[in-house]
């Protein structure tokens, strides 16, 4: 695993690129995120064909509050990568669902749990929780013992 090709291609947009435990760990700017993911997907150096998951992390109190981590894998070259971006509540993160299908639900889960919005996502709505749920439970300021009644909502197909 080496990350030179990525650093050379995107230069300033890459904030940090290291290899830890055999996995490439890249921190980048959210503005270039979609291009970087696209590059990893298409370039013969990385050949990332699986987006395993998108993970949200809430660092309450830090300046960009949330971190998003994209877990990537290449079945051909058998290497793993993590791409991390810092985002705020108001930021619109470009969706990766046009590159990998799996981003669709993974991003919906992040939206559900953290309230991070994804731009141009085909169907951004709650996935594990019900419509009408107030707040986003994996945020650090959501109390662990808060309970909510399930509202009665007419279902639409």
């Amino acid at each position, binding site marked *: 695993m080496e990350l030179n090709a990525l650093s050379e291609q995107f230069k300033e947009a890459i904030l940090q690129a290291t290899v830890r435990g055999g996995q490439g760990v890249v921190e980048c700017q959210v503005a270039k995120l979609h291009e970087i993911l696209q590059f990893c997907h298409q370039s013969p150096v990385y050949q990332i064909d699986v*987006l395993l998951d998108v993970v949200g992390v809430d660092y309450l109190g830090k300046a960009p509050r949330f971190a998003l981590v994209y877990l990537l894998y290449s079945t051909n070259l058998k290497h793993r990568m993590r791409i991390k971006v810092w985002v705020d509540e108001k930021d619109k993160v470009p969706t990766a669902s046009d590159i*990998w299908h*799996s981003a669709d639900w993974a991003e919906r889960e992040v939206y559900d749990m953290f309230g991070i919005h994804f731009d141009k996502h085909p169907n951004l709505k709650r996935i594990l*929780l019900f419509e009408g749920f107030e707040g986003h439970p994996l945020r650090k300021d959501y109390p662990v013992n808060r309970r909510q009644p399930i509202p009665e909502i007419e279902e639409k197909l």
Partner: protein
Amino acid sequence: MTAEIDQLKAKPTVLNLGPSHPAMHGTLRLYCELDGEIIVKAIPEFGYLHRGFEKHCENSTYTQCIPYTDRLNYVSAMMNNVGFCKAVEELMDIELPERVQVIRVIICEINRIIDHLVCTGTNIVDIGALTNFWYYFNVREKFYNIIEKLCGARLTTAYTRIGGLMRDVYDGFEAEVRACLKEMLDALDDVSGLIGKNRIFLNRTIDVGVISAEKALSFGFTGPCLRASGVPFDVRKDTPYYDYENYDWDVAVGEHGDTYDRVVVRFEEMRQSTRIIEQALAKLKPGPIMTDDKRAALPPKEEVYTNIEALMNHFKIIYEGVRPPEGEIYSATEAANGELGFFIVSDGTGTPYRVKCRPPCFPIYQAYASMCEGGMISDAIAILGGLNVVAGELDR
């Protein structure tokens, strides 16, 4: 005339399959728009079993998280225990004693067999063949007897600890496992014989729910479902852990990516697991079942009662928990249904800052609707069984 027939076209019927339906395993729900018996559009809905696993972990010590992981894929609970502990151990850079690694391999493969027995057994039941199910569940029961003797519980095992195991295997464990494996292979032969040339089974599964390798990868498939589509990706081979590279076994790969291949790949994986277990049993040497790393291991009881430092260390590990250094890690194991990953962020305290579980069936279930659309309702049931979606880890 044709214009008149067009006008007669019926309105689409909306059918609600599940969440509490015997064929929708667990609490899955599919909202289907039907044209006759053909599914035109399907919308899956889930989350009925959501219990906030990740939020709970953020409020527990690392060791307290282990019982929560049992409830992820409750059909093969020990694999989740192993997956979580492996992630924390990698974060702390703990080297495991050889005996721990070998026992973990054995219990993982036993759980893989159990998981595949349940998955393929119920899948074939859904298609209408009940006998196979009893053949499989007889053996599964015997395996559960072993697990019960091993850790006192059948389903909610919590058998691993960070840096080792809860307790060592009992006397006569090896012989019982070997006897069980033999019975399992017999049952496997029986079932293969019953369904191998069965017209109903073949017609219901071949070319049903086909997914190409390219599409499967894009959907994030891993495990048997991806291998059925012809991609030989197995975490145990590609990024080996616990010495898997030194066992002699093969990756089972399918060709067409249909329900039939998914069932047959699982059959073959059970045979390969037996090979791994046989070799692991031969490798099992006496030794410690816990690391000697003081950050994770409880001090021996004699020292706790005689030595003040050991007493303090004991209390600190129990009360404050194991304390990995600040950092983050993604660690993956090959669970029965695909890549089970844990992404853990540690802030240096005894409770994890963030635990993200990457369940293998979450991305697989995403593809389910598109695999059903255009097929019959009965096909939707046949497909679902082969995908082996477990609501416990889907909803977390």
